[in-house]
């Protein structure tokens, strides 16, 4: 096998894994800090994508549409937390069912509002040559974006006042309450941040994945599995799982077929859950 082909495969697999990680981080934050699995995560991604698309069509430069998408999804996330999640705190499966219903509602609303055909914004036309191979540049850029997101979330959780409060309320809830941290406020912010991260993902991935009402489904299944396999240490766990599962599936797809790549993903997931019934990070000592 030629070296340049191998390099190409590695590079693009890394970018696939990064795309999966970008789509997963928001989910991981909400699950890690609130113990809530948000099954409507994919639809927040979709809302982010549509927001960016609509704003871009209205003449705003694409790069500026990303913060707008984040803001919109954060607001919707806060409202959802206030109306639904808040009332189901500590009831994991009820939350899952309610957010599942929510995902269907969002999906159908998107069909109603946007229809099923919407122009894409096109992928920036630049490419990178590796030996005889040529790779689209934008997907490779996602490696950097994923790394930046990880660093951002890490800093947010460890250096900001909000992050410390959020971690305190999940780790020692009564203590946090005793020293005056309002856990309901922190939770609302956490959920909102998680949704904002989903919105960011939708917007930043828009050139790769065109906005459609059903785009959420394609992404979130793998994102859920990533978070669940990762286990309680969500941030580090998810990063490692996304890299292993997403990258592995992409390498498999390069040498075999995309269907085998998908099967690889699901089979390894089942295997990991068999070996680590509570997630791979269940026995780790770090907490983030």
């Amino acid at each position, binding site marked *: 096998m030629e070296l340049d082909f191998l390099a190409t495969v590695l590079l693009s697999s890394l970018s696939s894994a990064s795309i999966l990680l970008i789509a997963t981080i928001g989910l991981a934050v909400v699950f890690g800090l609130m113990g809530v699995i948000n099954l409507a995560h994919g639809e927040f991604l979709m809302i982010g994508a549509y927001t960016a698309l609509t704003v871009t069509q209205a003449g705003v430069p694409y790069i500026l549409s990303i913060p707008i998408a984040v803001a919109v999804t954060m607001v919707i996330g806060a409202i959802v937390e206030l109306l639904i999640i808040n009332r189901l705190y500590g009831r994991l499966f009820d939350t899952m069912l309610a957010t599942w219903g929510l995902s269907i509602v969002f999906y159908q609303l998107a069909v109603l509002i946007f229809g099923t055909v919407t*122009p894409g914004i096109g992928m920036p036309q630049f490419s990178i040559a590796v030996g005889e191979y040529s790779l689209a540049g934008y997907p490779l850029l996602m490696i950097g974006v994923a790394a930046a997101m990880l660093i951002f979330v890490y800093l947010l959780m460890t250096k900001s006042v909000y992050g410390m409060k959020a971690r305190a309320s999940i780790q020692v809830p009564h203590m946090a309450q005793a020293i005056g941290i309002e856990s309901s406020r922190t939770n609302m912010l956490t959920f909102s941040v998680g949704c904002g991260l989903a919105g960011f993902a939708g917007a930043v991935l828009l050139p790769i994945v065109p906005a459609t009402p*059903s785009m959420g489904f394609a992404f979130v299944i793998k994102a859920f599995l990533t978070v669940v396999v990762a286990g309680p240490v969500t941030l580090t766990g998810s990063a490692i799982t996304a890299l292993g599962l997403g990258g592995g599936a992409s390498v498999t797809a390069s040498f075999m077929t*995309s269907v085998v790549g998908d099967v690889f993903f699901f089979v390894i997931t089942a295997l990991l859950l068999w070996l680590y019934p509570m997630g791979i990070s269940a026995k780790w000592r770090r907490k983030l």
Partner: protein
Amino acid sequence: MKKHLTTSMIAVAAALSAQAALAEIKIGAIFDLTGGLNIYGIQQDNALDLAVESINAGGGVLGEQVEVVSYDSQSELSKYTQYANTSVLRDGISAMFAGLTSSSREAIRPIFRRANIPYFYSSLYEGGACDRQTFVTGSSASQQLQPLVEWAVEEYGPRVYIMAPDYNFGTISAHWINEYAEANGGEVVGEDFLALTVTDYAPTIQKIQQSRPDFVVALPVGANQTGFLEQFAAAGLKDSIGVVSSNYGSGNQQVVVSPEAGEGLIASQGYFMQVDNPANAEFVEMWTAKYGNDTPIVSGAVDVWNAVHVWAAAVEEAGSADPEAVITALESGITFDAPNGTVTMEPGSHHLRQNIYIARGDDRHGFEIVETFEDVAPTYENEMCDLLASPNLAEHFTPESN
């Protein structure tokens, strides 16, 4: 509610006992007006309404007005069977126009076969559906691919790469591409079958570069897969490798992809809005008058338009809307002057002989037609399926199973 039930019971009774004693002629329609497939379904339904309107305005068939009973299958398969049964058990229709995906067709075909009601399927598809009640007005895979592969081998060179979705449409199309490539002196240098959920095309694009083809036959389905075209263009491969497709454009994908990615793509279809003939000019005018010109008309819409007119011609010829008589009339070689040129219903295979157009995408989300293959026969279906000789066939022929 009670009144509603009583009337519908009478309707059922009438339908079951007499079936032909019609005050007016009722036809049924089931299309996806909502849900993920409504880009096709709405246009199909619009075309049906427009066709019925034009027939009724011209005095109807046999002097009777045609009434449409329309259902929205919501892009869900279970709704197709439900409404197909409704239309048979309750509405007493004399012909059915329905379906987009192959699975929707296969789901309801047995229902109309049992009820002996002509069923028109109007969408491009993988080919091979064969029974006495089913009539297909879309083009089959072999019908579209034969001219396309012939043209592309001549234009780009002999090395072919196939990128197809991993389900019936994709695998059967791949079979025909192999066969026609060989027949035209080409060779298939690589194939990649993609799961429907794929959003990551990097592996495929690497494999394409590794195989060094002259052109790629790309058969993406679903809006997600236009991502492939974007990424292919962004990788800068479009200048050295041609991209042709037999279904690009069938759902107005040219509107979704960016002009950079769409320019120069080759598509083959039974109809493009740009077709230049008087029937099409008239059709487009009627269409835009009623529905506006926001979205280009897709081939599936014209397939429905043709289906309704072919059916109407058969009713006229039979002198009755009685399903059995109409089926017999449909097997007499009915022709119709359609927007996509003159079309003929093949008596044996129940498929439509029609023109196949090859078009090139421009940089304004549109197409220009580069070549017309006239009067292309559904060769494979004609060969496998002769319902005149064996009217009891109820098959779905696929080339692998021979």
